[in-house]
């Protein structure tokens, strides 16, 4: 399962990386935008996150192993943090090999000017920030259901809405609301970071959202005691 996700993600990400290369042949384009500016790449990221997080609690709930886990002498918070850390590390493992694309690009295009590492670095920064936030959301959704399919679909829809909030904005009235949605929309953040522009606001936004959903997951697991 893990290897399938990893391989599938790298194939899709590779295709998405090649596309702007071919399209913009001979033109000037930001190096970071090659990978992090492509919508296909982000859809693959969102799908990968949904697939990584879907079994976290749903599968344990279905098979009953959750009962074994939660009656061991560990706190619910420890269980949740453990699962979160596991998913996050796997997400890093899945996404880091994409760095090879840039290295390969440099190797096969010797005529190219020296690679500008800054947009690449900031690109990964926003990728992992978004990952850490969306994985927390996916984990939360997984803690609510015993069906992995429901968890995956629920997570994918939730993080897609969050990611494409600036599109959602078009359907809502009010300048203030629209501005707020644009501020929260990941597509905006991604475009900035892919050009090497670092803004601290999204960093705080994603990290605080991640903390919130980790906390919400703990509460969702504890809820068994009150139902």
């Amino acid at each position: 399962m893990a290897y399938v996700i990893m391989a599938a993600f790298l194939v899709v990400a590779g295709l998405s990386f090649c596309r702007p290369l071919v399209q913009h042949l001979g033109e000037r384009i930001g190096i970071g935008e090659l990978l992090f500016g492509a919508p296909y790449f982000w859809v693959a990221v969102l799908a990968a996150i949904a697939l990584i997080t879907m079994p976290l609690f749903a599968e344990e709930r279905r098979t009953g192993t959750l009962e074994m886990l939660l009656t061991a002498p560990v706190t619910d918070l420890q269980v949740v943090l453990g699962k979160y850390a596991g998913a996050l590390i796997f997400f890093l493992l899945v996404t880091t090999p994409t760095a090879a694309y840039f290295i390969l690009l440099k190797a096969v295009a010797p005529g190219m000017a020296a690679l500008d590492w800054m947009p690449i670095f900031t690109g990964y920064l926003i990728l992992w920030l978004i990952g850490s936030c969306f994985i927390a959301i996916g984990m939360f959704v997984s803690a609510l259901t015993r069906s992995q399919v429901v968890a995956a679909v629920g997570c994918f829809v939730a993080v897609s809405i969050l990611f494409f909030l600036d599109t959602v904005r078009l359907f809502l009235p009010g300048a203030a609301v629209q501005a707020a949605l644009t501020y929260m929309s990941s597509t905006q953040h991604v475009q900035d970071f892919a050009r090497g522009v670092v803004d601290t606001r999204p960093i705080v936004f994603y990290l605080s959202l991640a903390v919130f959903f980790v906390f919400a997951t703990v509460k969702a697991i504890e809820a068994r005691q009150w139902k």
Partner: protein
Amino acid sequence: MIKVEHVTKRFASAKAVDDISFEVLRGEIVGFLGPNGAGKTTLMRLLATYLAPTQGRVFIDGLDVFLHSLDARRRIGYLPENAPLYPEMRVDEYLSFRAKLKGIPRRKRRERMEEMKVLCGLKDVERRIIGQLSKGFCQRLALADSLIHSPELLILDEPMIGLDPNQIRAVRELIGALGRRFTVVLATHSLAEAEAICQRVFIMNHGRIVASDSPEHLAGQLQGNVSVVAEIAGPPEEVAERLRCVSGVLTVRLVGPATSGLGRGSALWRRYQLGCHPGTDIRPAVFGIAAAQGWPLRELSLEVFELEDVFIKLTASAGRGQTSG
């Protein structure tokens, strides 16, 4: 070891456990017996700290499981229903994971794992993937896991499901042997199991405890529970009349002709069942009558009701009470 005070667990629709109180002493083997849906599993989950009671309190070794959940859990080995395991792990991997989770220090981990594998007969499958194991091995692996941190209290929910008769005997003996060192609480719907293992049995129905005692006493508590079977050759009406006059006899019932195969000789052989007051032995009197009348007597035996009869009587009548009330 366990003290349960007026515990109620209410789910959205119904009370799964309804105002239960009991105590279990250290070293006891206690069984919870009841039909499906009686609230046994919910009660086990409450004891194992997986669920919290809606009302009432549960103490394990003097610790309120709600306030000192982790300390209580260290003392508990819990085997949930159907022995849930991670199918993709190997037996060794799983045990080592659980040992780590339960905070067994690294130095002692290997040693404990070896002990458990020998105790539960898992030596031959230690490298196998759990998903490929038979139900019996899974059950034993889950049992090994529940014992690995040397708990003081063992909570077993239907530990014999899916085992073949040999394995049942082996697990029974294992639990019996453990019972000397641990306190064991098990939920089961098998009467034979409760009778064979437990020193004390609680019978549950509709979330309540409807009876509790040792299996023998429980059977002895039933009213009119003693009956004597006699096989006598004599004129049936006269025999029945005479037997009815014996003091202590409440009912006389003809339970058909004599047992087959041995019926040669007199055609008057009949089998009588005599219901009598508990605590009186009417057999000498029955023999006296037969001897005085010159009726041959070839069987005279005391029938003691089995736990099964008690179980059926209690759970069936409580069921009626619930529907009418």
